[in-house]
């Protein structure tokens, strides 16, 4: 009669792992209705007496109305003596019907009977949780279960939660998919090639006003290509499609820029390569082109709403500010910001090669290989710098973490430990990175290798802008960095 699934589950978790299991956790783990989970707990508890004597303890929930004597009086004074006599008709007494007081109480099994006797009317008694030993007075242990449940529920469709577990559904509840959690996950999970490829441009685009910013791209791309990441390759192809904001003046500038000899050497190859890859890309993945324009605009819209609904990340705001200085339309800017977000994420995610578009990757890598010989020099440079850059982007910090462990008696103990945690949002590093780069401005190759530093030089002393760009690129910078500077 006893279902193997749940009894095994409960035996493992409670008797073996010495965990407390609430009905909610059980329902989440087994994907069953909470009412059924309560019955499972009951049945397991009943059977455990013979199977695991004294190893399973139950906590009950009683709902109902307490006997008047034990009710904490919160009731109204019907005839309020102190109320102003002038305007207090007696009619309101009629409205003062008895106030229903319902109590929900958690009690350990030992005190169930006693607790029941304090109730005048019992609605339900159910097994709330099973645990190896009696819970502490404040039922702390159960909070851990609640946390697990929340982790499971997180990002689940409210409707699904209601259907599966029997939670009440709210017809109007719509979880927007633009919260931070939702926003980040798709990126890191399915790291799309496209965003990576785009990463370099947003920054230039943002600074459209700055003359040289756009030039770099051709140069930087080659460098990227030779780098272990295939991102660079896709960049060129994307640009035409994604960057709607590109103005003719930019193009002119680019042409001008490309005139310098060192760039020339690389650019033809790059271009051909780029076009090739673009073709390949388009043919290979039908999704990528669509993403470029439509998706970007969609995302930018999302971003707009995000910003309008009081964005939490200061750095975002900062970016926005720094960005809006430019001449582009807000939408473009936001799109660009989004791209920069994405690029950051990818940087952070330690060059996980994109999971999804593997086919593309392979292709682009092949292309890279072909191209590599002419680009040897830049390639080396990149090899030097790109890891460095990555290293700079990331950092470590000391964080105090609370670690909950259960001791032999089944009590939850909390230890605070200082742990080093890696993070990736510091722009102090970014700045320090940019400085060396600017000093080495004389060598064009170096420039090409790290897009951001180049810009600074290009901007003809507009270092501020460069820095801002950096910030925009860094994405997750905090306000504190402003003061540090």
């Amino acid at each position: 009669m006893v279902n193997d699934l749940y009894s095994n589950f409960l035996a493992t978790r409670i008797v073996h792992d010495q965990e407390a299991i609430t009905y909610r956790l059980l329902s989440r783990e087994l994907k069953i209705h909470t009412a059924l989970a309560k019955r499972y707990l009951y049945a397991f508890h009943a059977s455990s007496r013979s199977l695991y004597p004294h190893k399973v303890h139950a906590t009950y929930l009683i709902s109902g109305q307490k006997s008047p004597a034990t009710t904490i009086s919160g009731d109204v004074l019907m005839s309020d003596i102190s109320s102003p006599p002038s305007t207090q008709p007696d009619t309101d007494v009629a409205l003062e019907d008895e106030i229903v007081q319902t109590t929900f109480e958690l009690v350990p099994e030992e005190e169930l009977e006693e607790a029941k006797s304090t109730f005048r009317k019992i609605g339900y008694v159910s097994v709330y949780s099973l645990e190896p030993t009696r819970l502490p007075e404040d039922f702390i242990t159960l909070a851990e279960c609640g946390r697990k449940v929340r982790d499971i529920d997180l990002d689940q469709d409210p409707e699904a939660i209601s259907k599966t577990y029997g939670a009440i559904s709210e017809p109007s509840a719509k979880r927007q998919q633009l919260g931070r959690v939702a926003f980040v996950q798709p990126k890191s999970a399915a790291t799309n090639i496209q965003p990576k490829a785009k990463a370099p441009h947003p920054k230039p685009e943002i600074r459209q006003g700055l003359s040289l910013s756009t030039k770099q791209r051709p140069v930087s791309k080659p460098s990227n290509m030779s780098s272990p990441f295939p991102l660079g390759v896709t960049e060129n192809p994307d640009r035409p499609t994604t960057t709607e904001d590109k103005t003719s003046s930019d193009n002119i500038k680019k042409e001008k820029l490309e005139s310098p000899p060192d760039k020339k050497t690389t650019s033809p190859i790059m271009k051909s390569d780029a076009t090739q890859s673009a073709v390949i890309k388009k043919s290979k993945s039908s999704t990528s082109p669509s993403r470029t324009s439509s998706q970007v605009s969609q995302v930018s819209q999302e971003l707009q709403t995000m910003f309008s609904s009081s964005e939490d990340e200061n750095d975002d705001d900062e970016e926005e500010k720094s960005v809006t200085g430019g001449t582009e339309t807000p939408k473009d800017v936001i799109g660009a910001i989004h791209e920069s977000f994405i690029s950051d994420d990818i940087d952070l995610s330690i060059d996980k090669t994109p999971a999804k578009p593997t086919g593309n990757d392979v292709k682009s890598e092949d292309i890279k290989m072909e191209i590599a010989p002419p680009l040897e020099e830049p390639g080396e440079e990149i090899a030097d710098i790109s890891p460095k850059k990555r290293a700079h982007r990331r950092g470590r910090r000391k964080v105090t973490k609370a670690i909950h462990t259960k001791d032999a008696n089944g009590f939850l103990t909390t230890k605070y430990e200082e742990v080093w945690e890696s993070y990736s949002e510091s722009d102090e590093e970014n700045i320090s990175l940019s400085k060396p780069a600017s000093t080495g401005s004389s060598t064009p190759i170096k420039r090409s290798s790290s897009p951001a530093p180049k810009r600074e030089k290009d901007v003809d002393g507009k270092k501020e802008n460069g820095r801002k760009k950096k910030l925009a690129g860094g994405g997750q910078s905090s306000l504190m960095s402003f003061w540090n500077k």
Partner: protein
Amino acid sequence: MAPVASSSTLDSDYLLSDPKEDEAFPTFERRASSRELISKYNNEFVLKNTEKTYEQQYASLYFLRLTVLKPRVSKVASEAWNGMSILNQEVKAVDRVLDVRQGEFCWIVGTVYIEMALKPNILDEITKEFWTTAPISKDKFANPENDAIMLEDESGRVNLVGSTIKSELLVTGCVVAVLGSETTSGDFDVVDIRFPQLAPQLPRKMSTGQERQYVALVSGLEVSGDVHESYETSMLFEYLMGELSGSDDSKHASEIIHVIVAGNSFSNRRSPLSRDEESPDNAQKKKKKYGYDSSSYNSKPTEALDSLLADLSASVSVDIMPGDQDPTNYSYPQQPINAALVPRTRRFLGSSFRSVSNPCWWDIEGLRILGTGGQPIDDIFKYIEGDDRLQMMETCLRWQHCAPTAPDTLWSYPFRDCDPFILNETPHLFFAGNQPEFKTKVIVGEDGQRVRLVAVPKFSETGKVVLVDVDSLASEVLTFALNGTGRD
């Protein structure tokens, strides 16, 4: 286990039986209902950053208040006193307080000001720099023997005396009409007093449906995110989501169409951890930073509340209102808590989650609700003897002002163009959050206005949540208790 006999007709052991695989359990859905914020009033509470200025004096707030409320009180007073004669002397209205003639029976309208020795006073603060004064309890400012009640208008101020005035509930900032005569010493001996009385009330839309609808009021959750978080909070959220108990309880929970979290949702108690951080060892390690030190920020309360609210918002529509402990401005009116503090919950913005100002007006299925986080009532409490929160709330409605002690002792923004706390309308439900205990009653106005007053207790201390029936205004209390805590 043997089923325990219970007196109820309900099958209380419904959940204490062996599971049947194919049994279908009911699931419930909340009714779609209108849960509007009354923007006409709320807009005045929400201050735009661009429009905020602190250059002006507070006097304009009092001036505006008197300008608006004087005609209303005068109307009530003239109805009551016109044509009345005392000692063969006909009572007449005097427009300005300073125009009162000695020995003449008349009535005047003005703003009450109570001079209280125990009230915080900026001049005292300065004095303290030179002399040390004994610390005094600030729980109450009231000291009936020494407090002087005055009435003032644009022209001046007159001292009110007499037993009538002493017995009335009065606080600084309320606008009243008083009837009496000036004594030889220049005081005004009060014979009678009138308030503006309840403002007009919109008729309540009575729904014809059999289904009940409730609004749940909870305040003082004080979520800390600590390990030792009170577990009642989790029980409450499980109940509201309909998972906690049996199907009847779930059904009841599904009748809750809206949840108002009325202030102090975040705990401002410092966790043991943060105290550790202040130990000398750590203090030395900490390097001085200019500006805000983000490492001192304790994100636990917001994270914990966020995950709770995100769960809840998926199941019921929720409004969160700030209280005096919450991370928003302290001065009244408190601005909505920035939704960025609750990133997960924020995803329900625009559907089932809102962050609202304190105070705030709602129109929920035709039920007009005015709610505060409780600060005005707590502040009035300091002015008077006794602790009848409901009377204070009722008197607020009769003063037609929901925060009379602002800006005197209740910190407030110096409004220039309007006094947003004046009530132009009487709500059907008036609640104050974070009160010491649950109290409720219905008051009836002269024009048939019916108002349900609810003092919403602090959940963290009482484990109580108040449900108010949208149609009948009946109230219900849910108590969440851990073993024994709710029993005595």
